[in-house]
């Protein structure tokens, strides 16, 4: 594990250098990111125009849920987003090389790329979050500030876990993997964005406990926002996100391990 951590900057830098090798395309890429980021910031305005006043939540509160979930999701995207290359790695047999090296396979797939381009989207989420923090009427204190950081960290971990599990399905469903993955990750983000009491009961239970999206932001936010839970769940759940995140990561690691054992490589 220490070898993996030590190598990270070197591998990340090699990716940036690899991109620099193609100078023109790197310049185009930078322009692209800039335009995308600009569009992201324009989108904030649109988002605030359209955030619904849902089931007894104020605009500021909804923005707070949206912002925390969005920032977590975007950080997770930066770290593991290129797992969507996994179907290609499997199909081309490039995963073979990964498996002959003295490093963790998941680690190597994740460091195949470094998602610099996501910085803009993370910044966008942070702006939404800052606006929400000042308008949601939060009774700020040290505990709540700390809880905000914990929430984002746990949310990121949960999204990373979902991403990994979603990507791993490719080992069983060769070919149709990408759609499944996107349903998990982007769909999950969409759901976590809104207060879960707007969903039907059965869906709510799945979101809360099976794919633990409710722990990304809903439960901890109840504490930060000092709100009654319209669903009257036990208070303890508001502080359970770190445990849930840890469990999610462990499950993801186990599922990945099973996936690798199922890896069949290619015939040529």
């Amino acid at each position, binding site marked *: 594990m220490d070898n993996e951590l030590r190598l990270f900057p070197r591998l990340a830098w090699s990716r940036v250098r*690899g991109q620099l090798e193609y100078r023109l395309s790197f310049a185009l890429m930078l322009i692209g990111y800039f335009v995308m980021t600009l569009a992201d910031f324009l989108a904030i305005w649109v988002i605030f125009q359209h955030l619904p006043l849902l089931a007894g939540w104020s605009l500021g509160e909804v923005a707070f849920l949206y912002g925390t979930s969005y920032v977590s999701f975007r950080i997770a995207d930066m770290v593991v987003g290129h797992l969507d290359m996994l179907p290609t790695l499997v199909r081309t047999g490039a995963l073979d090389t990964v498996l002959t090296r003295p490093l963790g396979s998941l680690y190597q797939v994740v460091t195949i790329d470094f998602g610099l381009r996501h910085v803009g989207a993370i910044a966008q989420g942070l702006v939404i979050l800052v606006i929400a923090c000042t308008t949601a009427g939060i009774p700020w204190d040290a505990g709540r500030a700390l809880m905000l950081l914990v929430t984002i960290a746990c949310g990121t971990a949960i999204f990373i876990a979902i991403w990994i599990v979603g990507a791993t399905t490719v080992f069983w469903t060769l070919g149709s993997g990408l759609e499944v993955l996107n349903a998990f990750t982007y769909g999950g983000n969409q759901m976590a964005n809104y207060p879960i009491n707007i969903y039907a009961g059965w869906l709510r239970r799945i979101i809360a406990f099976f794919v633990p999206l409710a722990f990304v932001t809903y439960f901890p936010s109840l504490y930060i926002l000092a709100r009654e839970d319209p669903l009257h769940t036990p208070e303890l759940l508001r502080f359970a996100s770190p445990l849930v995140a840890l469990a999610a990561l462990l499950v993801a690691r186990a599922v990945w391990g099973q996936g690798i054992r199922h890896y069949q490589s290619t015939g040529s």
Partner: protein
Amino acid sequence: MAIIEVRDLSKQFRVARPREGARGPLARVRREYTDVRAVERVSFDVEPGEMVGYIGPNGAGKSTTIKMLTGILVPSGGRLTVAGFEPSRQRKEMARHIGVVFGQRTQLWWDLPLADSFTLLKHIYRVPDERFAANLGRCIDTMEMAEFLRTPVRQLSLGQRMRGELTAALLHNPEVLYLDEPTIGLDVVAKSRIREFLTSLNRDAGTTILLTTHDMGDIERLCRRVIIIDRGGILYDGDLERLKARFATERTLVVDLEEPAPALDVPFATVERVEGPRQWLRFQRADTSAAELIAAVARAARIVDLRVDEPSIEDVVLRIYAGAAKGIAINDPSPG
């Protein structure tokens, strides 16, 4: 003690095919599965310092075996240890002790200069500075790589890249080196350069080498021992010379004469084919040597050009089957 131990190793692949007549969106869901038996109950040992040719026709199961030995694939059955490790369960630990080159894949960083791949691998395998410098230096000298070290990998020729791949696989002084078709697509010069390098590596560093190839020339130059696999099972395991004496007995002399002539009449050879001035003469290793035959032909006609064709691996496999049908013992009683 054997450095590679393989016992009853098997691998089945589960492959899906759409159900007959299935159409539309559900065709992918409603699939039937069949098992392809790629490797079936294969057993062999390789001693430290051996250089073994693992050969057989297309689809025989060579690459699948190597993928199990390297920990890429989890076996469906049987046991194997490599340098004391169980590949699929101790993959990461074992990786420091083995090197792998797949002729059809690359382990180099496509978009970086070749030298940068070596530096990254140095850090991945934690090779000490002096050892790295020594190993790299030796490869650069013996395989003449100095002039393309700064070239991005994607711009290298196949032969240059293959020298890079070999270097990359050897920077950490592996005890075992697996080569899956290392000379595929290379020209004569590039092939012989790689063969020479492998010979010296095996001689000087004592590296154990297991290599697959479709090129009998590779085998003749490099291996004293061959393992022949076909349809997932081992057909022959033993000395190359004995194999040749027993099953690769038939060779062909191809001569280009100065002018078209009727089929030549020389002892111990039968003319198989005549095409203008070119004739194909089949002869048995036991009856006559190529040199004697060439001399005999030269007495009968003027030779412009000639070559001797060795039987291909596919021919040898066919003859082993034919021999087995006649009850000839296949396996060498004293392998290695």
